[in-house]
């Protein structure tokens, strides 16, 4: 382990962390602009040109607000909740391959923090931990609405995790590896997994919506029934952390979906581009394409939120257990049979 390696990884982590925070920040702005567009309004346009400074203004507002901890709340856990939500949102980016290797001189720099051979399972584990921030915060607030919201979040999370895991199994049958880097390399050019696993992708995406608590699955923060849900009692930057964590989750799950099903940093004609732009610019163009895919997914998240009304709670459970799980199992069986037939002939 030489010093250069440590510095390289450190810089990469810092850049990824910065980018995810920046994207989360501007997702709040984009969300309001998209909502405004879909509802034929203007959206925020006061702070700076086109309201581009709005996230900064929101951030300052969050920091300046009074910090309130309810007197009967479990003080320590009340503070741990938002921190945990933020932490679990951020650590998912560690295994995502952001681009192919950059070669500077003799040194090959992978644009991925770590390529563990259980990459998908790591993402899955991080997703399953994500619920703790909401649960702990909701319980520690000592508020009936927050508690209800925490319980909703937990049951929703567990229910949709099963379907998500099953949809990933079908993908693993196709790819034969759990390393995210290898999965992306297999989708070279236009051989994207979406072509082989369309049903699996739909299931995975619906589950991703549910796991990130986005509409139409945002039952834990359903304001008509639960006031603010788990963050009812929160104010100031702790509330900011919860809201921020949601946008980081959205960014990470968009990146995972783009990696698993939409080829990551691959695009048609990439060999030609790589040949003509060299070993530094070429991979960076791939990263740029990857980010375009991520932004497309984030836009899709927002589009759905402002188009489809929220599910009722029993409908949510019905869809998860009786719709998605049987569908995912059927997907596994069909994929298995097709692969067996192809290998036979």
């Amino acid at each position, binding site marked *: 382990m030489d010093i250069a390696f440590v510095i390289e990884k450190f810089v990469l982590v810092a850049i990824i962390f910065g980018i995810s925070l920046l994207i989360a920040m501007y997702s709040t702005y984009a969300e309001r602009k998209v909502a405004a567009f879909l509802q034929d309004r203007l959206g925020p346009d006061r702070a700076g040109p086109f309201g581009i400074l709005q996230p900064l203004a929101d951030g300052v507002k969050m920091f300046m607000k009074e910090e309130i901890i309810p007197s009967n709340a*479990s003080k320590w*856990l009340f503070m741990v909740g938002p921190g945990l939500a933020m932490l679990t949102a951020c650590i998912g980016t560690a295994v995502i391959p952001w681009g192919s290797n950059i070669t500077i001189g003799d040194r090959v720099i992978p644009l991925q923090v770590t390529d*563990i*051979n*259980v990459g998908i*399972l*790591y993402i*899955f*584990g991080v*997703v*399953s*931990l994500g*619920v*703790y921030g909401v*649960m*702990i915060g909701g*319980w520690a607030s000592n508020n009936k609405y927050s*508690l209800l919201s*925490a*319980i909703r979040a*937990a*049951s929703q*999370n*567990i229910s949709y*995790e*099963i379907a998500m895991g099953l949809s990933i199994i079908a993908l693993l049958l196709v790819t034969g590896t*759990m390393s995210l880097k290898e999965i992306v390399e297999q989708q070279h050019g236009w051989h994207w997994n979406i072509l082989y696993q369309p049903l699996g992708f739909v299931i995975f995406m619906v589950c991703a919506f549910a796991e990130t608590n986005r509409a139409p699955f945002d039952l834990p923060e359903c304001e008509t029934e639960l006031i603010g849900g788990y963050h009812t009692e929160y104010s100031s930057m702790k509330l900011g952390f919860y809201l921020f964590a949601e946008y980081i989750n959205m960014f990470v799950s968009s990146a995972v979906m783009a990696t698993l099903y939409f080829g990551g940093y691959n695009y048609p004609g990439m060999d030609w581009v790589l040949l003509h732009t060299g070993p530094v610019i070429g991979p960076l163009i791939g990263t740029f394409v990857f980010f375009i895919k991520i932004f497309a997914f984030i836009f899709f998240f927002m589009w759905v939120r402002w188009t489809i009304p929220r599910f009722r709670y029993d409908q949510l459970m019905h869809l998860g*257990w*009786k719709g998605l*799980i*049987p569908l995912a*199992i059927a997907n596994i069986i069909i994929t298995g049979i097709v692969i067996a037939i192809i290998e036979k002939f």
Partner: protein
Amino acid sequence: MGTSVFYFVATLSVIFSLMVIFSKNPVHSVLYLIVTFFTFTVHYILLNAQFLAVVNFIVYMGAIMVLFLFVLMLLNLNKDNEPLKSGAVKVVGVIAGCCLVVTLVGSLKATAVSDPVILRNPNLGLLKNLGKELFGPFMLPFELSSILLLSAMVGAVLLTKKEKV
């Protein structure tokens, strides 16, 4: 380096498992249990068993403990509404504890310093090797247990279906 890390993490495991027992609030107990499981995950990684580590992470920390927390939050056990334990219960508890200590001491005395386990393949815990092992010699038990788990899940879904009269 490996040994010192092991002792550090092992100490943390012991401390947090003691906290599980000693904390008054059941929700805090569960949270300490989660941290204990996390230290177990670190142990698995130290043993080069990445797959087991991640599965421990997903299943125990991510699913089972969420359910524990879920139930305890619903029960809402507070110090205020907890019934006071009578003297008899305390006496029974002390006797049971003493029995446990005797058993533990006896079993500790019986164990000799065990031979260190030498793995034929130190990378057994890696995904590929584990998969080859599971789908090779242990094919039948593995498949049977997976069918068992699947049927349990299907059963749970079926139970929620309303019976048509």
